[in-house]
């Protein structure tokens, strides 16, 4: 009589569950689980020669990593966007592009990034992997590496799923003076494309607006386009991306830094029709909506045609256009010419932009 014996395959004693699907507090303890998370999830997607050395810090040498004779540029950013995923992007892409762009706005070439991840207990590792993949894609496009990273885990309810903080290092030629205080009277004010898309895409992803659209966030790494722009117009005075607070707030900041009056014309500002409708429906003003893949460039008037040509040649600048001029010296203000030909002043966003019903 044949007897059926158990096949004796697989573990025979109750081993602890491997918790592959969700973040648990143990992932933040610094022990085995942390190392497994770093190796199997973070390094799997973001790994490179420097990061994989596994030291406490990254060594960047002048010569091999950083060219001699340049100025260093550093920037840092925190990302708490909610929801984490939206049409056109996610928090991962945002965290890479945000810092890459900030560094580039000084005319610098970004090269090395650090990233900190604050995870909430219970967060889906599948979602984490999606986000890391998104970061890798953005980092590859921008040609940057994440050379140092850290991760911590909070108890459930103490954070909002995932927060990411990134810092970026780049270098810039010492004779370039691209910054917010460099705008000069007579300069042309250029905008690389339509505004408002990111703000609406994120608002829509929250799911309580009661409408659907095809509007996508414009989040993108702009360093490639900026390099082309500076090559064509080394005399570029100001570069800035109109993120939080939108186009209007950013221009007011620049006007105050440079101590000038900037005047822009409503008819020249590109806004996609569906973004305009969405803003109308919500009672929001597109001039104050965040953009994550656009830039403002202020260049000498005679260089405007070359600047626009360089922007148009790049996929992120096809709709670049001149929207105004720097009119005169002053304590810093932004003027806006309406379609009726009248002029009014625009201020920074005061507090949170609330949707209006009137």
């Amino acid at each position, binding site marked *: 009589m044949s007897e059926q014996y158990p096949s004796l395959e697989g573990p025979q004693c109750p081993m602890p569950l491997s918790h592959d699907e969700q973040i648990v507090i143990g992932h933040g303890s610094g022990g085995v689980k942390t190392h497994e998370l770093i190796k199997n999830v973070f390094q799997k997607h973001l790994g490179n020669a420097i990061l994989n050395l596994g030291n406490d810090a990254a060594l960047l040498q002048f010569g091999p990593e950083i060219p001699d004779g340049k100025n260093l540029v550093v920037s840092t950013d925190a990302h708490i966007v909610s929801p984490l995923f939206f049409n056109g992007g996610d928090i991962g892409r945002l965290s890479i592009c945000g810092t890459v762009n900030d560094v580039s706005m000084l005319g610098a070439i970004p090269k090395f990034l650090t990233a900190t991840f604050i995870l909430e207990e219970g967060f889906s590792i599948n979602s984490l992997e999606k986000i890391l993949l998104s970061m890798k894609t953005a980092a590859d496009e921008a040609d940057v590496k994440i050379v140092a990273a850290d991760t911590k885990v909070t108890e459930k309810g103490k954070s909002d799923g995932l927060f990411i903080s990134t810092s970026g290092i780049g270098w810039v030629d010492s004779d370039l003076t691209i910054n917010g205080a460099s705008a000069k009277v007579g300069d042309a004010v250029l905008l690389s494309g339509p505004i408002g898309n990111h703000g609406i895409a994120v608002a829509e992803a929250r799911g309580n607006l*009661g409408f659907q659209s095809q509007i996508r966030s414009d989040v993108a790494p702009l360093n490639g386009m900026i390099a082309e722009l500076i090559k064509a117009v080394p005399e570029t005075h100001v570069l800035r991306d109109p993120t939080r607070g939108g186009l209007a707030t950013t221009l007011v900041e620049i006007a105050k830094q440079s101590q000038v009056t900037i005047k822009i014309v409503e008819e020249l500002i590109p806004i996609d029709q569906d973004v305009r409708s969405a803003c109308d429906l919500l009672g929001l003003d597109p001039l104050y909506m965040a953009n994550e893949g656009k830039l403002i460039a202020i260049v000498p008037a005679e260089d405007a045609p070359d600047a626009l040509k360089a922007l148009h040649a790049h996929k992120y600048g096809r709709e670049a256009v001149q929207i105004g001029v720097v009119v005169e010296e002053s304590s810093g203000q932004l003027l806006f010419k309406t379609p009726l030909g009248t002029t009014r002043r625009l201020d920074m966003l005061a507090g949170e932009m609330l949707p209006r019903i*009137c």
Partner: protein
Amino acid sequence: MSKTSINPESIRHTKTIIQEIRRITTKPWNIMEICGGQTHAIMEYGLDQLLPEEITLIHGPGCPVCVTSLEIIEQALQIASLSNVIFTSFGDMLRVPGNKQDLFSIRAQGGDVRVVYSPMDSVKIAQQNQDKQVVFFGVGFETTVPSIAASILHAEKNGVRNFSVLPANVLVPPAMHAILQSPGNRVNAFLAAGHVCAIMGYQEYEPIAARYQTPIVVSGFDPFDLALGILMCVRQLESGHAKVENGYPRYVTRKGNKAAQAMIEKVFEVVDRQWRGIGLIPSSGLGMRPEYKGFDATERFDIEFHELSESPLCIAGSVLRGVAKPIDCPAFGKVCTPSHPLGAPMVSGEGACAAYYRYHKVN
């Protein structure tokens, strides 16, 4: 692709109308618009800069956010603080200051305060949160009333018992009476609010025009509509007429939207109401009919109704009545700014003070 907010043809038409206004104006006239949206549009496009000097635009109490009484705001804050309540409201109410706090502060202290874009959203939230009480802050002129009424009827039909409304709606015609009757009144003509009239029609303005011999023209919201409304007012004023005219025929008829009015009639009745900065205006608000008191948040929650007082510096009342401009206020732009408002007209996007602060002329 991208286009501007107004098409070039409309701009051309607007300029033609303004040219005509300049041609026919011979005397000084004060024209009041009673709608925050119109104030906003006038300032946004700088329309007032193009009009002849003789014409002064006065911004009336057209911002329901601004005129909601301090007492009702305090009631809202009390209800929002309750732990089993989800308090829902249009966004612009969140920053209106009560005695010491606003809805934002209640949210920061842990209250569940949510912005909604429609009262129907609140009913949905109630259906999804059966263990909570969901309250909708019923602010607005006649324009939002049918929506609120329809939402209540929908909730009733579907047995949504945990939904209620804090009634705070106000009516335009009594405000016009109050303004025209007040001793300092300088208003010669009114632009009536186009969307209020889309609902209510304009026949209720005819007795007002007749009694006070004041022209009233129903107007829309884009620069062309507003310019047209102003032209129609000036034509009447210059020729000594005083009637109600319709400058927004694409959405407004004399009798208005009957279906919407029927809904309002079913759920609401006229009550006296306090207007912040102005005082009590008789028969100027809407409260729930007895058969709908079950949906009235003031009946459902045990809250107190206090006498409260405003900042002594804030001259909102005079601004709302149109007897003072925001720039006449000693606190304007100094102690009172959009980030630190003393009074309601600085808080709301359409309040006259906020509009002045954001859009004031360049010279």
